[in-house]
């Protein structure tokens, strides 16, 4: 049980595991691992609760139907898998303010939540704009050598590194 209860595994082992997992998702489910489309479907499902079936007629939801499908279940599985891993290792921890954030921006929960919401809006919007996220483009797409995915993945990191520098070194530095 020692191995399974360890707090962290080597990133190389984890990466190889994800790579091998991809072989099986292609073989068994004929699909690549991805996560962001599930959030778009969820958004459509929530809108449907308020506005009824006319939401399904929206151009976007004609392609990305607001229903539970393979990837939606995959995302549910990620929540469960991470929960199992953290419970087994004792790493599970209710945490509102990440330590790295607190060092620079303090421990005001409203500030952190505001950044998380705004960041989430950019992330969800950008993922749909690019047609994928760090898993769909960054891992699954690049391994298939898709041009769209290599460009998107490089831009994820250009945007991310520049923004992290701005908020931590320029804004955070001035605080």
């Amino acid at each position, binding site marked *: 049980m020692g191995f399974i209860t360890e707090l962290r595994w080597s990133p190389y082992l984890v990466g190889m595991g994800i790579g091998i997992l991809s072989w099986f998702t292609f073989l068994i489910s004929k699909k690549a691992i991805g996560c962001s489309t599930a959030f778009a479907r969820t958004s459509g499902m929530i809108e449907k609760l308020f506005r009824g079936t006319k939401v399904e007629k929206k151009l976007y939801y004609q392609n990305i139907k607001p229903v539970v499908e393979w990837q939606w279940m995959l995302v549910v599985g*990620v929540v469960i898998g*991470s929960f*199992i891993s953290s419970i087994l290792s004792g790493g*599970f*921890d209710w945490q509102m303010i990440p330590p790295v954030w607190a060092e620079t921006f303090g421990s005001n929960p409203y500030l952190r939540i505001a950044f*998380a919401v705004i960041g989430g809006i950019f*992330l969800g919007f*950008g993922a749909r704009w690019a047609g994928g996220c760090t898993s769909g483009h960054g891992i699954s797409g690049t391994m298939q050598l898709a041009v769209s995915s290599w460009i998107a993945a490089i831009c994820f990191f250009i945007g991310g590194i520049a923004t992290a520098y701005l908020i931590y070194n320029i804004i955070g530095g001035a605080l």
Partner: protein
Amino acid sequence: MNEINKKTSKNKQLLAGLFFGIIFGFLLQKGGATSYDVILGQLLLTDFTVVKIMLSAVVTGMLGVYVLKGMGMVTLTPKPGSFGMSVIGGLLFGVGFALLGYCPGTISGAVGDGHLDAAIGGVAGIIIGSGLFAALYPKLSRGILKKGYFGTLTLPELLRVNSWFVVIPVALLILFILYRLEASGL
């Protein structure tokens, strides 16, 4: 009978998704990728865990998937793209990646291991952002998203060579980058 078969195969597909997701989430958590601190460490270039996970997943996945493709056992599903989609969408995503400190996959894992900023703020934000995009999609799809469209092009197709002439150099390049990261103590 046909209806029942369809239903069973749909349920099997959903269960397979759940099962693969559990393994994916388990691995992300074990790798530390469900942690804001690890992701920000990557974007601030002080901790290369995320890049190490991603590159080793890509090299392992790519070799296997292209072998399976060669044996006719899998069909690739490259996503379509354009410069308007991939560059601008990628940069917008990157801004969100740094502000939030999670991405759609890792945030699901972060919800699972107790990160409340992810569960309360981040998930809501991603759902709002996706909905905003769906609302603007009719306009965007006629304009900026079409700019520089290249479709489901892959690198071997772009270079007009056998896949392995790209797979092997990319694998070697990734191994070299990982080697350099380790050698420089990152």
